[in-house]
């Protein structure tokens, strides 16, 4: 498996797209910190941008890479390697490459310009989202044979988690305005990794104090140890479940 990871990692690092992604992240984060005189606000803006860009790039890039290396995967399937190991290897190679890009693009500027807890949690949130969306992309690539359809599915997933889900939440909120929805909201935020990441960040940046009753509830829930553990567990679930499911499907897939 190590050899596969090494091979796909080197293959991706030679890719221009990943270089462009790194540069984009670095330019965005450095310029935000240079433009904004209030570093907390810069972290906020960087959060908004990275919550959009990181999932998008991760899912598109992973889907396309998996389709592009379909022949390579087919070749390796013919070799005496277990299929699960093969997909794990490619997957780990991809996320390692994306995480390296993230470290260089966001982690390093944050470390130099804003070495605080909020900076760290911004980086960790972005890293978690990278893994989550790579898993989802792998799943969609495994499930669909057609390249265009696969990319469409992963784009749709990104669009769903970024926009549609929040729209649904808003709709639910207004349809059920007469009911106490505070705990339901916590539950609903668990169903979307992007929302979960964003709320976690907002709690960190202490904006939560203004959120009234719901905010106090969020603070109580996410701010204490048990809530934090639960959030981490849910995030882990979002990272691992799609890829485990994808590997199960890949084992029996008719290539």
């Amino acid at each position, binding site marked *: 498996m190590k050899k596969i990871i090494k091979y796909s990692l080197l293959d991706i690092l030679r890719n221009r797209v990943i270089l462009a992604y790194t540069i984009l992240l670095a330019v965005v984060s450095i310029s935000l910190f240079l433009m904004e005189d*209030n570093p907390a*606000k810069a972290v*906020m803006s960087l*959060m*908004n941008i990275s*919550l*959009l860009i990181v999932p998008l790039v991760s899912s598109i890039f992973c889907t396309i890479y998996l389709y592009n290396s379909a022949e390579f995967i087919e070749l390796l399937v013919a070799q005496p390697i277990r299929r699960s190991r093969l997909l794990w290897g490619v997957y780990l190679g991809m996320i390692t490459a994306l995480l390296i890009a993230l470290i260089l693009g966001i982690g390093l500027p944050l470390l130099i310009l804003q070495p605080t807890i909020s900076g760290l949690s911004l980086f960790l949130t972005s890293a978690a989202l990278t893994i989550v969306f790579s898993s989802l992309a792998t799943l969609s690539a495994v499930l669909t044979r057609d390249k265009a359809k696969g990319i469409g599915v992963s784009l749709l997933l990104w669009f769903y988690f*970024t*926009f549609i889900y*929040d*729209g649904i*939440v*808003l709709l639910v*909120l*207004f349809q059920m*305005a007469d009911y106490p*929805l*505070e705990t*339901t*909201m916590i539950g*609903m*935020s668990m169903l979307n990794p992007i*929302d979960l990441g*964003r*709320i976690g960040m*907002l709690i960190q940046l*202490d*904006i939560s*104090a*203004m*959120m*009234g*009753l*719901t*905010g*106090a509830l*969020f*603070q109580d829930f996410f701010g204490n140890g048990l809530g934090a553990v639960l959030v981490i567990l849910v995030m882990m679930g979002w990272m691992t479940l799609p890829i485990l499911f994808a590997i199960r499907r890949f084992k029996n897939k008719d290539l």
Partner: protein
Amino acid sequence: MIRLFYIIICAQLIVLLPAQAAEHLVKPGESIQAAINKASKGDLIKVLPGTYREKGILINKQLVLQGIGYPVLDGENKYEVVTITADHVVVQGFEIIRSGYSSMDELAAVRIKQASYVGIRNNRLRENFFGIYCQHASFSLIAHNDITSTGGSELEAGNGIHAWKSNHLVIDGNFISGHRDGIYFEFVTESTITNNKSHQNIRYGLHFMFSHQDIYTNNTFSENGAGVAVMYSRQVTMIRNHFLDNWGSAAYGILLKEISDSYAAYNEFSRNTAAIYMEGSSRLIIFANRFLQNGYGIRIQASCDNNVIRKNNFIANSFDIATNGSLVLNSFNENYWDKYEGYDLNRDGMGDIPYRPLSLFALIVERNNSAMMLFRSPMVGLLEKAEKIMPGITPEKLKDNQPSMKPFPL
């Protein structure tokens, strides 16, 4: 002849002497109360450093009680330490500690009871239930006291400076921390609160009720449980105060409830959950204040009318304005809003298109608190952009017709 002259002068001196203030010295081990009982009107009692456990000192005549090197008056958690019932009394330079705690009586470190022209100056108050308690006091000065306590809950702690049914008080340069309310005013009129620092109190930094024609200037209220509350009062003037770091789900920089004909100018509101929360307030002038990094700049309920919000700076607040209804009876004019995206073609310093300070999301959150989950979601950003272009849900009239292009130098 000369001898007679001497005799006359001596006789005159003897007559005059009792009118002059005598000085009494109290040493550790002696009783301050005994010295007070012995003293006559207008005397000066000096107290040397030491600890005095007097089980309650009563000052019932015109006196100056002066501590030298901060002698300690200890209430042993049982007694009220100093009670003043006479006019023209000065208490200064003491460290007064551990006044009694009672759920029946409001025991204080120093109580002014139906007296006028009293001065409480330069004292250190530590671990008291109530700090300085003014009850039917008038024309009195409470200045440069350092009042701290470590009260646990709202029930266990009393107020730092508590004034009830008083008038013409001057409260100047005190530091108050760890009490229930830093400064508490109820039925106190024509008084001045200046240069105080009220910090980390359990409930309010300043609590103000039924107190008319008062002025407070140059005070700093920071990190209090619920900020500052000014309620049911008329003609209150608030100038150059600082309201800082009052965070919490029910914390306000300043809560204005049923206030009328008042004036708030040149204040600074930084990092509060809601800088100003207004309810049932009329004819207020909010002029030239700075609103920096608050959750809400002004939460103005629909029950407020005829308020003028003019020439303020709104910078880096999450929401500038929030309101709960569509009725707008207040005017917003010539403010600086950092979120303003308009232009100024004729270069007169005022934006050419009106600014709508109420964002759609602020309105949604006001109606449905749980929507806060979607704060800073891209979806909400899209909705807000759409609303900015075609206002449909936010009140049409809530706008600043002449937004300033540049922040005011405040």
